C-alpha cells in the first residue's frame, strides 16, 4: 500500500503516536515518580532510590511478597504437571467430546469474580479454614487451563509415530515420555509454566476472596490494593515498577519460548 497520500500517511502516524502516548504516559509517570526523591507524589525533586530501599524494610510488603512467591511456585508446579498430562491425554485420544473441551476452557472464560465467590461459598460450606492453601487450590484451576492450552498448541504438530517407534524399540511408557515426548514439548511446558507463574503472581480477585480473614495470607496484589485504597505513597510507585518489570520479563520470555501463543 505504497500509494497513500502524504496527508493520509501523516494522519496514520499521528494516530499511532497518540495511541502510544495514551498507553505509555500513565506507566512512564509512575516509573519516573518511583525515582523521585521528595515525599510529594508529583513534584520532581531529584533522583533517588530511597523508595526502593524503604520497600526492603517494609515487613508487610516482604511477607506479602513471600506469600505470593509460595502461592505462585506451588500452584505453578501442580498446574504444570497436571496441565501437561491433561494436554497429552486429550491430544493423544483425539476423540474428546464438546463437554471436555468446555470443561478445559471454562476457567479462562468464567469471570474472575464469579469463580472467586463460587470458591468462597464452597470453601466455607466445607468449613475449610482459608489461607494460602485455598488460594493455591484456586489458582491451579485457571493455571491448569492456560498450561494445557499452551502445551496442546505445541502437540498439534507432534508426530505421534515417534512414540510408537519408541515403544516398538522396547521403551516403557515412562521412558518414552521422559526421553521422547518431553524433550519435544519442553519449550511449551516451560512457556506454560512461566505463563502460569506470572498469572498467579498477578492474580488479585480470586486470591482476595479465597484468602480468608487475617493478614497472614495477604499476597502482593492484595497488599497493593490495600495500599492504593489508603492513598498514594512513593513506595507504591517503586513496588509497582518492580512488579511490572518482573511480569513483563517473565511473559516476554514465555512468548519467546512459544512463539506467540499468548496474545492470540
Amino acid at each position, binding site marked *: 500500500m505504497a500509494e497513500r497520500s502524504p496527508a493520509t500517511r501523516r494522519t496514520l502516524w499521528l494516530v499511532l503516536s497518540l*495511541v502510544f502516548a495514551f498507553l505509555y504516559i500513565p506507566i512512564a509517570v509512575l516509573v519516573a515518580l518511583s525515582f523521585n526523591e521528595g515525599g510529594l507524589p508529583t513534584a520532581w525533586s531529584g533522583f533517588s532510590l530511597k523508595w526502593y530501599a524503604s520497600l526492603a524494610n517494609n515487613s508487610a510488603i516482604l511477607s506479602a511478597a513471600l506469600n505470593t512467591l509460595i502461592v505462585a511456585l506451588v500452584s505453578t508446579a501442580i498446574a504444570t504437571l497436571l496441565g501437561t498430562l491433561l494436554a497429552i*491425554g486429550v491430544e493423544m485420544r483425539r476423540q474428546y467430546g464438546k463437554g471436555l473441551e468446555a470443561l478445559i476452557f471454562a*476457567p479462562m472464560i468464567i469471570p474472575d469474580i464469579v469463580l472467586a*465467590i463460587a470458591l*468462597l*461459598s464452597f470453601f466455607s460450606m466445607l468449613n475449610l479454614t482459608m489461607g494460602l492453601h485455598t488460594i493455591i487450590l484456586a489458582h491451579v484451576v485457571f493455571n491448569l487451563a492456560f498450561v*494445557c492450552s499452551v502445551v496442546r498448541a505445541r502437540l498439534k504438530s507432534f508426530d505421534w509415530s515417534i512414540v510408537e517407534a519408541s515403544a516398538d524399540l522396547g521403551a516403557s511408557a515412562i521412558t518414552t515420555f521422559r526421553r521422547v515426548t518431553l524433550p519435544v514439548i519442553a519449550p511449551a511446558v516451560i512457556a506454560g509454566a512461566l505463563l502460569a507463574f506470572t498469572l498467579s503472581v498477578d492474580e488479585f480477585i480470586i486470591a482476595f476472596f479465597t484468602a480468608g480473614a487475617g493478614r497472614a495470607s495477604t499476597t502482593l496484589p492484595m497488599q497493593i490494593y490495600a495500599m492504593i485504597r489508603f492513598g498514594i505513597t512513593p513506595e507504591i510507585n517503586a513496588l509497582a515498577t518492580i*512488579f511490572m518489570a518482573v511480569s513483563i520479563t517473565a511473559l516476554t520470555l514465555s512468548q519467546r519460548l512459544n512463539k506467540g501463543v499468548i496474545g492470540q
Partner: protein
Amino acid sequence: MAPALVWLTALMVVPCALMLALAFFRRGIYGGIDYTFTLENFGLVFDPLYASIFLKSARIAGTATLIAVVIGYAAAYAISAAPRRWQPVFLFFAVLPFWSNYLIRTYAWIVLLNREGLITQLLRWSGYTGEPPSMLYTEGAVIAGLVYNYLPFVILACYAPLSRLNPELAEASRDLGASAATTFRRVILPLTVPGIAAGAVFVFVLSIGNFVTPALLGGGRFQMIGNLVYDQFLTANDWPFGAALAMALIAIMLLVLMAQALAADRASGRAAQAVGGTDG
C-alpha cells in the same frame, strides 16, 4: 489426565453449581443461609434500586466499549498500514502494557488524575490558576480506566482482520469509482466487523462485571454490579442475593456473546455480498 479433570470438577464445576443453587435459597435471619426454596432473590434483582445499578453499569461499560473500539480500530488500522516489518513491533508494544498488573495500570490513573497529578500540573503550567478540576472519583475516571485497561485487546482483535484484508479489494473499489470514505464504509468496515465485535464483547463483558476499577477510580462511592456482588458476599453477608446477582451478570454476558455470534454471522454474509461472493 484424570487428576486434572478431578481438580476442575471439584474446584470449578461443583462450586459454580453450588453457587447457582445458593441463589434459590433464602437468607438466614442472622446472615448465613436458610435452606428453603425461593425465587425472591431473582425478583430483587429487578427491584428499581438494583435495576438502576444494572443500567448504570451497562451505560458505563457501553461507553467504555464504544471509546475503546473507536481508538482501538484507528490504532489497528494505522498499524496495518505501517511498513510490514514494523507491524509486529508496533503490535508488541501495543500489547505490552496489558502484561503488567491490572491494579497497577489502574493505579497509574490515580497518579495521573489526582488533584496534584500530572494533568493538574500541566494546567497550572499553561497558566490556569483556578481550582484544580476534580477528575478522580468520577464516572469519567472509571471509563478512562476501563478503556485504558482493555484497549490493547481491541487493537489485537481489530488488527487480525485488517492485516488479512486483500489490498486489491480496496483498489478495485477505487477503480470502480468509490471514494475513500465509501470504500471504507462498504468494503473495509464490513470485512472487519468480526474483529470489532470480538474486541467490543471483550471490553463490555470485562467492564460490566468489574469491581476493582469502580472501587479505585470511582472512590468507593461508586457502585457497579461487580461492587454489588462484592458487597453482598463480603459486607452484607447476603450470599443468596449475591449469588443471584452473579447469575444475572452471567446471563448478561451470555446474551452479549450470543449477540456477537449472530452479528459475526450476518457480517460475514454481508461481507460476502459486498465483494460479490468471492471472499468472506
